[in-house]
């Protein structure tokens, strides 16, 4: 065998998969970028949709701000954000927004002798703690609420997320809701001017800080708290009941929210309802309302992907401690897709699940 035929043989060996591939090549690829909070569930959906819907998703969790920047520049098929955009911001950027799943934020504490879901806190106490004005755990206001447990006499240390994050957005929105002073002072956002405490990086940083510091309190995503078996607290909700951070309380919050608002991002913080967990927030997808001709296919496939995920992915979302939306909400989102997203000829891109 001479050199040339060897070359030819190896070339065909390399090319063979490429020649055989067209049979499977119908798989569409979409790209998305943004929030890191929903990344686990999007990854799980992507793995399943590869088979189920024949769509391959390439999702980069670069942060909500990055996701908004990328979809505004139209460099990806969809952007993802935890902090929803307002209707004005959406109009300005020609974007359409819809929720995918919900998550919740919980408080974790390190008090020797205090068990999970035992400690009860009221909005007033939480505000005082995060302003740095409540300095010891055996403060009469806390002891009075928790007669049944022994609260040690140690100093209070506050932990917060130092990196800008959707978790901070949710938590500071809650603080701004329960305290007028917080609303006009530090305010709410993905990162704020904290009056007291220590910043740590990510959920793991905050939970590590709390675990290492007796007397520490910090907020983390519920999914993270559950997986890592952190000690979480009860909080008194708007209805005046102490609720535990468990699935029923989160689902109650998802059911109470009114998803029909124009930007599909209703107020989900501190809702009224007997057993509603007060800090439950949606995470959102941004699609262009006027995709250019060669992005139309990407937009359609993005909608096909989330349509498939809404029909088949709720179980996977629950398993990852996210809160799936109701099927009525899913139907509403599909209807809005048809109304809002048009190709350059002005025709609706979304024409139903079977298109």
């Amino acid at each position, binding site marked *: 065998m001479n050199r040339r035929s060897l070359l030819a043989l190896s070339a065909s060996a390399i090319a063979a998969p490429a020649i055989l591939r067209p049979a499977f090549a119908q798989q569409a690829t979409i790209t998305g970028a943004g929030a890191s909070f929903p990344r686990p569930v999007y990854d799980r959906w992507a793995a399943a949709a590869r088979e189920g819907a024949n769509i391959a998703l390439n999702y980069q969790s670069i942060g909500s701000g990055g996701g908004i920047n990328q979809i505004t520049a139209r460099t990806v098929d969809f952007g993802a954000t935890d902090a929803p955009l307002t209707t004005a911001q959406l109009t300005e950027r020609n974007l359409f927004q819809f929720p995918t799943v919900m998550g919740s934020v919980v408080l974790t504490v390190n008090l020797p002798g205090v068990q999970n879901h035992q400690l009860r806190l009221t909005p007033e106490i939480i505000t005082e703690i995060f302003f740095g004005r409540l300095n010891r755990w055996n403060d009469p206001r806390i002891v009075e609420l928790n007669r049944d447990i022994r609260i040690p006499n140690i100093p209070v*240390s506050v932990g917060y997320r130092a990196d*800008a994050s959707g978790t901070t957005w949710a938590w500071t929105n809650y603080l701004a809701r329960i305290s007028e002073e917080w609303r006009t002072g530090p305010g709410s*956002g993905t*990162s704020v001017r904290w009056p007291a405490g220590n910043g740590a*990086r990510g959920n793991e940083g905050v939970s590590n800080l709390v675990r290492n*510091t*007796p007397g520490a309190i910090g907020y983390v995503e519920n999914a993270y708290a559950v997986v890592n078996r952190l000690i979480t607290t009860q909080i008194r909700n708007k209805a005046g009941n102490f609720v535990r951070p468990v699935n029923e309380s989160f689902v109650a919050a998802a059911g109470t929210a009114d998803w029909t608002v124009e930007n599909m991002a209703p107020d989900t913080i501190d809702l009224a309802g007997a057993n509603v967990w007060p800090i439950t927030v949606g995470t959102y997808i941004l699609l262009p309302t006027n995709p250019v001709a060669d992005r139309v296919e990407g937009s359609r496939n993005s909608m096909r992907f989330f349509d498939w995920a809404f029909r088949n992915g709720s179980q996977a979302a629950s398993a990852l401690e996210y809160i799936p939306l109701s099927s009525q909400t899913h139907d509403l989102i599909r209807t809005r897709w048809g109304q809002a997203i048009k190709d350059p000829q002005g025709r609706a891109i979304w024409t139903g699940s079977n298109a």
Partner: protein
Amino acid sequence: MSVTTIQAPPVGARRKPGELGDKIFQAMCMGAGGFVLILLGAIIVTLFLGGLPAFERFGAEFIWGTVWDPVEGQEEFGAGVSILGTLTSSVLAIIFAVPVAFGIAFFLTELSPQWLKRPLGTAIELLAAVPSIIYGMWGLFIVVPFVQMNIQFAFGDQLAAIPLIGFLFESTNFAGTSLFSASIVLAIMILPFIAATMRDVFDQVPPVYKESAYGLGATRWEVMTGVVIPYTRISVVGGIMLGLGRALGETMAVTFVIGNANRIATSLFDSTTTIASVIAMEFPESLSGSLQQSALFAIGFLLFVISFFVLALSRYLLRPRLK
């Protein structure tokens, strides 16, 4: 089998040392050299232009302003706390690192047995190659709990009771992530750089000077303080500045352990922040074109300027002594 004759290679005009090739090579080398300058200039200009809206909005006050409020609608940015945090953490790191680095260099050049010099020198260089994120993790899981439990909880109250300097140790922050932890981690990170520079400059002292001193009956310590240090003084300071330059820009390791709070640290155990940490924490979530992003560019520019001066000073001090 045929007979082959071996022919002498043809003798022709000798090729002139390639005119064209030389020119191309020269142009490429010049291009490569010029590219570095252009790149450096472009980075400075990009940072400055990116930060311009923040500089315009807040003026010179941006440099010493202590408020950092990225909340939409009430944005206000000042780099004062992060500049101060960057400088204090780096200077403290130098204070912790220099004595140890001096000890290492002294041991390696004067005391160490010959067989130990090579492995120890290599170990110090390896320490310099550890990625900073590793130091960050180690700092968060080992140094922070140690500072919290064995220093702050153990002696904090006694230290705070010392007259005059007690306030340096008095803190209501019990999380362990603090200016002190950050300085310790930074000190360990820059230690190999300072130690390696010191060893190299100590080695450069002409043996005849040292031998003369020994001949006069000087002890090792007297040779060190009377001959080696005066001879290398300026280069040692240059090496320290090199370490300072690295400490100023360190990001991840510091971010893990400093506490990231935009408050001026009045005590070693208070948490504060640095320029590099603020950028690392907030850049991914800042919207393009927002004032927040501009302020992040602006503090990046300030960090660049500070590092530039420190490095320029170190180069100047470390310049070859023999002309």
